[in-house]
């Protein structure tokens, strides 16, 4: 069996029909993991007992493979009567997996802010919530923009994992072409090139945004 370029090109539209799903999953997973990660980190800082518990949860999430977490959610949730569409399980799985990493990013972001900022906010009479929202968060966002961007690209590159729970994103569609035609080389190469172009260009975009953010911070 040799590589058939014509066949490879003919299946590109089929694969690209999953581009929307792939991007949608990546964006949803990024938002989901940011929200979950922020909650983990907020709870870790709240009090000592909960802090230790959350540290364990975060470490546990980070010490187990994404594939296994996906299987866990996919097979265990229905056992408790919670049957969700595969794509929702997928987004949930990615969100949980990256929330462990984002919690660490938030931790570093908050730790990077000088204590004087908290004290100053207190001194001018801001409530704790106001201090966090208007003083700490804006500065934290600048600290975490770069790592968050990197994790967004990682989430994008992790979307093919969802093919194992039969979510029709690009990689899943390519594998489907493979099992229909018994030719796997062309679909895999085609989807590989598409993902590579996508990942590299989005990484460049993230770097550009990062540079602009840094420039605006210096003004």
């Amino acid at each position: 069996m040799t590589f058939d370029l014509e066949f490879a090109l003919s299946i590109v539209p089929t694969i690209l029909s999953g581009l929307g799903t792939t991007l949608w999953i990546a964006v949803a997973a990024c938002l989901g993991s940011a929200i979950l990660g922020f909650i983990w980190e907020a709870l870790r800082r709240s009090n000592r007992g909960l802090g230790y518990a959350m540290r364990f949860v975060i470490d546990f999430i980070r010490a187990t493979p994404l594939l296994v977490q996906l299987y866990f959610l996919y097979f265990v949730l229905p056992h408790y009567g919670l049957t969700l569409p595969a794509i929702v399980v997928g987004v949930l799985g990615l969100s949980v997996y990256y929330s462990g990493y984002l919690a660490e990013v938030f931790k570093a972001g908050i730790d990077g802010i000088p204590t004087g900022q908290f004290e100053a906010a207190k001194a001018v009479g801001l409530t704790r919530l106001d201090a966090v929202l208007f003083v700490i968060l804006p500065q934290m966002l600048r600290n975490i923009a770069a790592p968050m961007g990197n994790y967004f690209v990682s989430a994008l590159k992790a979307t093919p994992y969802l093919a194992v729970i039969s979510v029709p994103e690009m990689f899943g569609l390519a594998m489907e072409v493979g099992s229909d035609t018994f030719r796997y080389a062309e679909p895999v190469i085609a989807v590989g090139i598409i993902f590579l172009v996508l990942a590299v260009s989005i990484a460049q975009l993230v770097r550009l945004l990062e540079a602009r953010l840094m420039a605006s911070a210096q003004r």
Partner: protein
Amino acid sequence: MDFTSILGGIFEGLRVTGIVTLYGMLYAVPFALVFGVLQYFTRGTVQWMVTAVIEFWRSSPVLVLLFLLYYALPSFGVNLSSVTVGSMALGLNIGGYGSQSVRAALQALDRGQVEAGKALGLTRLDVLSLIELPQAFVAMTPTFINQFIQLVKGTALVSLISLTDMTFRAKEIAQLEYNPVGIYTALLFAYFIICYPATIIGRRIENWLSAGQRGNRDF
């Protein structure tokens, strides 16, 4: 089957998980070293080519890389065993990330180190191997341990190319009896037991290193 016998069944796959991790390291470490140093040393077109190779392994989704080697290579007449394919795809992917830590660690060194080495009459290669790399290694140890954990977790993917690792064993057990909660919880813990000690060691070294750096700054 109770929890311990499930865990025992899963650990029958530990040998394959270990072998793929070990071989993966044999690809990852040399790749990271050679390409990290090359990217640091070279300029212009050569550097561009080195970067392209790194980006291919680093920016492609690892699942795509795995299937690329598994399905596409045979159609070009290259037949490799599943273990080789698995460890190569995972290892070179991690090696791509590793090369960036090597380069970053080299770039972060004080320029005075190289200049001092040259002033002592060392060749550029001696400066690299005797002065720059030893310092860079120390600085990148925590990152390196994190990437090792990523590799261990990544090996779960070889279950998809029918290697009988821990994840594959869990799926086999799941076919014998209906107990998703027990089986997938045990699988999560199986990976946690392996990866968590590495996390702890990494954190220790990181604290130890940053304490050392503080000392330097005081001095």
